């Protein structure tokens, strides 16, 4: 995973709540067997509308998505995170994220930042009025900064440490091999197995 320390970029204000994973990346894109090449599927249905915010020329090259509450609801598809990253997003700000989407994002180095809705409103107003306004997402200081906005955010220390260092979860877990083996040794015999019926 690529490390995330701090990022500054222009924003896309997405004034919609309950943006589900079927909107982020429709199911027919899920047939791909790679982690890349999803950028054209991002918000595919909405992008058919030339006025959709992502299609506006002034939003080209923006890297911070500022979305409404309950972003990423629905399916467990990690493709939603890959699509946002493939498109160029480094961070997503919302007042509330769906659990699975949030977990997936943090495992891929896409920083999902929870801010209260009033701050999200302020960021919407700022970036709608001034498309070249930049937002800084600073993971070291756990702070979002933009003109007129300085907002601290929370992220548990463990997730933050993994992101700052770009650490691979599996390697970390495998350091605890002895604990896993010890647990396995005491599992009850009545637990089912998929092989050797």
């Amino acid at each position, binding site marked *: 995973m690529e490390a995330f320390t701090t990022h500054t970029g222009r924003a896309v204000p997405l*004034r*919609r*709540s*309950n943006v*589900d994973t*079927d*909107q982020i990346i*429709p*199911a*027919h894109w*899920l*047939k*791909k*067997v*790679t*982690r890349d090449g999803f950028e054209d599927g991002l918000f595919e*249905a909405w992008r058919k509308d030339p006025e959709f915010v992502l299609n506006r020329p002034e939003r080209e090259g923006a890297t911070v998505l500022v979305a*409404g*509450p*309950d972003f990423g*609801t*629905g*399916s*467990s*598809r*990690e*493709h939603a*995170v890959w699509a946002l990253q493939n498109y160029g997003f480094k961070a997503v700000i919302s007042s*509330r994220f*769906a*659990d*699975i989407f949030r*977990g*997936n994002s943090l*495992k*891929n180095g896409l920083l999902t930042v929870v801010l209260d809705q009033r701050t999200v409103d302020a960021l919407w107003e700022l970036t709608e009025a001034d498309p070249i306004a930049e937002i800084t997402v600073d993971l070291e200081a756990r702070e979002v900064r933009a003109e007129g906005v300085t907002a601290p955010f929370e992220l*548990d*220390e*463990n997730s933050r440490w993994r992101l700052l260092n770009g650490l691979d*979860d*599996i390697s*970390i*877990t*495998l350091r*605890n091999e002895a*604990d*896993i083996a010890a*647990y*396995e040794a005491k*599992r*009850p*015999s*009545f*637990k*089912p*197995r*998929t*092989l*050797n*019926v």
Partner: protein
Amino acid sequence: MGRTLAEKVWDDHVVRRAEGEPDLLFIDLHLLHEVTSPQAFDGLRKNGRPVRRLDLTIATEDHNTPTLDIDKPIADPVSRVQLETLRKNCADFGVRLHPLGDVEQGVVHVVGPQLGLTQPGMTVVCGDSHTSTHGAFGGLAFGIGTSQVEHVLATQTLPMARPRTMAITVNGELPDGVTAKDLILAIIAKIGTGGGQGYVLEYRGEAVEKLSMEARMTICNMSIEAGARAGMIAPDETTFAYLEGRPHAPKGEDWDAAVAYWKTLRSDEDAEFDAEVVIEAAELSPFVTWGTNPGQGAPLSASVPDPASYEDPSERFAAEKALEYMGLEAGQELRSISVDTVFVGSCTNGRIEDLRAAADIIGGRKVADGVRMLVVPGSARVGLQAVSEGLDVVFKEAGAEWRHAGCSMCLGMNPDQLAPGERSASTSNRNFEGRQGKGGRTHLVSPQVAAATAVLGHLASPADLAAADARTPAGV
């Protein structure tokens, strides 16, 4: 202080606990399908890692599989590649696979329980959000992303932050004609699509205890639609009776030991939940969705709500957008909404009891002119069982299409899709924009409402059907 069911199952699976770290949980069963696993296997290959516990891993094909001509090569080349990739990955790594055409193939959340692999007190994961289904047996079951699929393949564990717990108590008995699907749709409408976020839901109370295992699976299946990763129901005699004799259920002494353990899996009297919701079963009636998220639902007897009635501006905007997408007017009676398509199937309502319920209503009647009805069993076994009971004939005689098992029109990754502007009554779990096909409009319903809707051509309950029969003399 006592512990909740979720806390008991959690505690029994902690491999490692350390200050400032998420708990490392052992995973008892890992289910795989073709869509969310290819990149995970790639990761294993890249790092030279094997699958740690092949004996706790099983795969099937469901999302992409066609429901017609399953003996012919898969027409869509991209779908074909994805299925072939799963077959190669399972062969290379030694994972048990039930491919299309195999008698145990089917929607992954139907296959696990019917094999008896899903049991009380287990941790079950799958790269699919509807893994919450398996919590109906009193285990912790949740959907994971592809990075976590790779993590479980490599380590059979997952680092997880301990969730909060929410009790959803359903008092009293469900009235006649009200099903598990109506109940869960009403719960989601009450707490909202984000209401369960961060929680494990425990469904309890008289109405839940009286539900069959399959109905309990319908409830737990849609926990994710309320934002909760997992939903669970304490195991009881209904659970044990369902499991006994299934291929992977414990046998002999193991069975006795298992049941003794399973009986301890209840929330203690003095356990405290972080949140509680109470529902009075007697107040419920058949429930349908009108909008584009599963929380936008109402009793079938109601009308499409007026977006102006929402105080919260973002909810109001969401309702306006939903009505625009769905082509509905505020104040329109839900019963007046005509459909072109009826879909019976999915991990929510594709089990044998669902098919029986739909067949019972549609038997001896006809699907309305201009309506197509698809009946897709949740698994090949469910399909065989339905055929042995003659349900396929009932559906075909009514004018419905009887198909092979798979996810099918629940998400339209295979050819079973809505055309732009088409409207369905669907027993599946999501009514998102474009979920069943680009531009398609979805109303979530129970199998009973689906069948009645197919006959009348507009959203309707079995009671409406009986009323219509009374108005029309037999034989006319």
